[in-house]
């Protein structure tokens, strides 16, 4: 297996937590990479 980022965001604003976790873990890079293949 490879090396993977795990983003853990902690705080009071759940939508900000989601947004930060998604950004830091690179969801859209992975999504773009998978769907462009």
């Amino acid at each position: 297996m490879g090396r993977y980022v795990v983003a853990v965001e902690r705080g009071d604003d759940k939508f900000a937590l989601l947004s930060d976790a998604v950004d830091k873990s690179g969801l859209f890079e992975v999504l773009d990479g998978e769907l462009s293949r």
Partner: protein
Amino acid sequence: MVKPSVMMFTHREDPPVTYTDPELVERLVEMVRDAGYEKIRMVEAQNIYGNWYDDRTVKNVMAAAGFDPKKYGYEVCDLTEDVEEYDYGGKLGKHIVGRAWRDADFRISFAKNKTHMSNMVTLAIKNIYGTLPMQDKAAEYHLKREWYAATIDNLKNFPVQFGLIDAVYSADGLLGFKGTAVPQHTKMVMASPSIVALDIVATRMMRIKPERSILTKLAIEEWGRPEIDLLGIGPDYVHPDWDNLLIKDWFARFVFKLLTRIRGRRPEVPDVLRKSYLYHLLQEKVPEFWQAASDVLEESYLSFNLAGIISNGLVGDKMDTDLFPRKKNLPKRLIDKSIANVAEGRKNRKSTRQSLREFYESLF
């Protein structure tokens, strides 16, 4: 495609503890759409609650939980209702697959942060067990097949490319997977392109060694142990006051609270008991015993169902029976199905053997 954890829903919770928060899932849908992706599906499969309650289709349960596909422009797919034959190979072999699950270009597991009796935790990997299409999962995946091997075979055929865990509110304790009256406000969202890495991190935060989860253990054996770059929190962080399925925590607190209420002060364990070897053995080994006992329980369809009913009672049976009425003639239905399943059911008892072996080895 997004697979939230919804089918353990029994009633609308504020905040959601038993199921992935619909507001978070739908915000994710908005983010994915804003990034230019239009065809977004939400999937779930029916589960064992359908043995005991009516109207447990995925669309009904998701609507009851507050999901709004029209407003947010996604499609809800019931993986139990639209299936095709498929050969998974491995132990799952020739079986069926939900078409929507099979056809997805990109799969996201959006789990809830909860403990689990058999797997220790139910996180991003265990969430994928929920995509196996048969509604009566006890009969199909616990008795005829190995539920954990079926989950791994499912993942091998239909990879999940991304994982998220809604840990804003979490459910700990003996029956966390069924919810709790006392949510843990853990204030977290976790994400990773590897659901194995994600589960390893989330499991450690519960003070559980990741390999104690049979699914994580099998996933590491199958795909290797991931190297992890942890962002946002230190590697030693654990949830404060977190109770696992350690019955000693749960039971001891219950008894102590009861005795405290009766006697007006916190009771002490008598020396004669505290100094005994048996007392220490029970204190230390009950987790292993409980996991082995729960696996043994799963070998019987009747006991699985009865345990489900009893554990519903322990949790408080909060099913909204206006939306999901109790089935009529339930005892007769269960006994009839039990006889049928004992007659035809087979089980490779690997999980039971492993659990009993771990319990036995833990004694010495």
